[in-house]
C-alpha cells in the first residue's frame, strides 16, 4: 500500500473505497470510475479541497470535501477514504 500511495507537490494518490462498490465515484465533479477499493489521483493544483462524491441508484448520494492536510494524515495512517452510502 505504501508503494501504491504517493504524494507530489500538487496531487495525492490514495485509495478510495465506496460501499456499495458498484457505486460511481466523482472527483471534483468528474467521473473517476467505480467504488471498489482503488487508487485515485486527487489534484490540489487548482484548489485547497477536493470534492469526492459517490452515487448509486439504490442509495442516497454523498459528497465529501477533503483538504490536503486531512488526506495526507490518512495516507500516513494508511486509512482509506471510505464512503458508505445509505440505502434509500
Amino acid at each position, binding site marked *: 500500500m505504501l508503494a501504491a500511495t504517493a504524494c507530489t507537490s500538487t496531487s495525492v494518490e490514495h485509495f478510495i473505497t465506496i460501499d456499495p462498490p458498484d457505486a*460511481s465515484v*466523482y472527483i*471534483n*465533479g*468528474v*467521473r473517476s470510475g467505480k467504488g471498489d477499493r482503488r487508487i485515485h489521483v486527487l489534484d490540489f493544483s*487548482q*484548489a*485547497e*479541497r*477536493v*470534492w469526492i*462524491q459517490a*452515487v*448509486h*441508484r*439504490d*442509495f*442516497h*448520494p454523498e*459528497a465529501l*470535501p477533503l483538504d490536503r492536510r486531512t488526506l495526507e494524515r490518512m495516507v500516513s495512517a494508511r486509512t482509506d477514504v471510505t464512503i458508505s452510502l445509505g440505502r*434509500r
Partner: protein
Amino acid sequence: MGNFKIQKAALAAVVCFGLTACEGIPMKTFEFDAIDLDEEKRAALIVVGDGGESWSTATSKQQVVNHGDVETLRLEVPFQSREITVHVWPLGESGDVPRSPGEARNMVSDYKKQTRQLRLNDPARQLFILDPK
C-alpha cells in the same frame, strides 16, 4: 538621504496599491452542474447566498443548469465571507423557474433541494447529485 526618501515614497506607493487591490471582494467563477442517481443531467436553479436578493438575482439572471439551451452554468461568485452558501433547487417537470423560495417549495419536483458551503479555493466545477424525495 534624498534617495532614502524616494525609496520610502516608492515603497508607500506599492503598499498603498497592494492594499487597494486587496480591498475588492474576491471573486471566483464556478461551473455548476446537476445529475440524478442514474447519472443523467437534471434541471435545477442555482441560488447563491440567502435571502430575497439572492433569489431575485437567480431568477432574473436565469441561473439554471440543464434547462433549455443551457447545460452547465458558469457563474462568477463574490466571496464576502470565507464561505458562501449555494442552494440548488431541482426544477419540476414543467421546467418553470420559481420566483421565490415559497414558490419553489410548492413546486412539484421529484428531487430534494440541496445546500453546499463553498470556499474561494474550492474546485471550479461543482457537481450536485440530486436525491429523490
